């Protein structure tokens, strides 16, 4: 099943507005999905007998920088029976001053997304709605800030101890 076929399949199932766009310039084409529908799309791609995207290779939280003002999540799916790969992207505009970016969790579809989403929350500060256990995973529970955000300032103190290096 080619990239175009997958696009048609999703548009046929959920309507054309679910696909917000596509990126075909690079080596790997990517589909831009409507952020609120990502869990449904993943479930459909996993269960449909023509695609069977049963393996979530990678989930990446991305801060696109202060100028763009966008946060996004990138999903790399793989289909073991058909040996296919697919990239899905969701992103939303967020004003850093008020509130944190929130996306839908896909931990119900792929259990491996559980830890990946915890990592994205920990390092990029993306919150996942419906996640079973959204705690920090690599940094201490009481760490302040999200280090992989582009506007992150390196912490000078941790619990009153100067971080000196």
């Amino acid at each position, binding site marked *: 099943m080619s990239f175009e076929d997958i696009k048609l399949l999703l548009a046929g199932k959920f309507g054309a507005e679910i696909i917000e766009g596509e990126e075909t310039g690079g080596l*790997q084409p990517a589909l831009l999905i409507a952020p609120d529908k990502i869990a449904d799309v993943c479930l459909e791609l996993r269960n449909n007998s023509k695609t069977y995207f049963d393996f979530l290779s990678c989930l*990446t939280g991305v801060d696109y920088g202060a100028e763009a003002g966008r946060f996004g999540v990138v999903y790399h799916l793989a289909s073991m029976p058909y040996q296919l790969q697919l990239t899905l992207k969701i992103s939303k505009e967020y004003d850093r001053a008020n509130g944190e970016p929130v996306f839908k969790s896909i931990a119900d579809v792929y*259990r*491996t997304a559980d830890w990946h989403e915890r990592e994205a929350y920990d*390092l990029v500060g993306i919150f996942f709605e419906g996640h079973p256990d959204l705690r920090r995973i690599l*940094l201490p529970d009481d760490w302040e800030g999200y280090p992989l955000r582009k506007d992150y300032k390196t912490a000078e103190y941790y619990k009153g101890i100067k971080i000196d290096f």
Partner: protein
Amino acid sequence: MTDALKAYHQKIADASVEDMVLNMGPQHPSTHGVLRLELITDGEIVKEVIPHMGYLHRCFEKHAESLTYQQTIPFTDRLDYLASMNNSHAWVMGVERMLGIDQDIPKRVEYIRVLVCEMNRIASHLIAVGTYGIDIGAFTPFLWLFKDREHIMGMLEWASGSRMLYNYIWVGGLFYDLPVGFEERCREFINYFKPKMVELNQLLTDNQIFISRTANVGVLPRDVAINYGCSGPMLRGSGLKWDLRRIDGYSVYPELDFDIPVGAGLMGTVGDCWDRYKVRIDEIEQSLKIMEQCLDRLQNELKRTVDFDPRAKLPRKLTPKPQDYYIRCEGAKGELGFYFIHSDTRSEIPFRAKVRAPSFNNLSVLPEIAKGVMIADLIAIVGSIDFVLGEVDR
């Protein structure tokens, strides 16, 4: 404090009343590094496992955002520090594909890369098998295997100048050509090492005590393995023939002849600890086979010449076009992926780099398969996953 954190504290507080909360690690020999497992136990039974990671977090992704592609290669060596060659191979291939020079790499360079990667894979599996023996209570295999691994370390040190963290594979080529006499020494090692595997099988693989401790323990069904993103020997132990060296056919692997061992449940159920162990043993043999084929080519049609320069294809500037790229490779532990976002045409620094670490995903299945086992079996399960904390915590 977030709701999830409150719920977690509440759970531990509740469990302390009825059951017993035990800490395994971070300083525990069976956790193979600084992993802390919080166990909720009822007597000898483990009711729940809560892993805590991050003790070895070295901000790889943050570093990668401020260093050039070439400068990050030594950092990739420190991810899975038992198989550094495989890490830098994956990183380098990703960058080469983004630059569009992956077809220009000389064959000799590709074969040397595959040769050193397979040597490193053997070294990694030797540690996995040896320390697994120690977890179960067999001390001798550990000493034997470390002795054999030392030969590989010595040879890779000869080639790269460093024992564990090589920085040998560079974008567009290699640090240096192989030293003179390396191929012959490598053949000597293969001839020496093959009988050693037979000895190991007699000592450990077919040992009745070892089988009793590992067969039918920690059974990982195939669908659970896929859903949790397990890969490498972990997934193949559950009986699925999934090896990216074959599926993606990167580098020169399509030209090489090797089998993909899978777990068959010879001693118990498919996907138990013994199967995962056995897959590693069989993979060592396949890696030896690949090494022999590489040496055949390197000593015949791709022989070293006086004017051969492994750095000839080194680009002057590593400036890919703005794009996203996800590269996946078969590392020693499973699917090792790097995701690059490059946004600036004139920059040599990625906008964002993300590591898809195989150990991280393999470890995430532990709470699922360790539910309701005995504490002693938990050690067997943890050992059979074969994770490296440098890669889990990055």
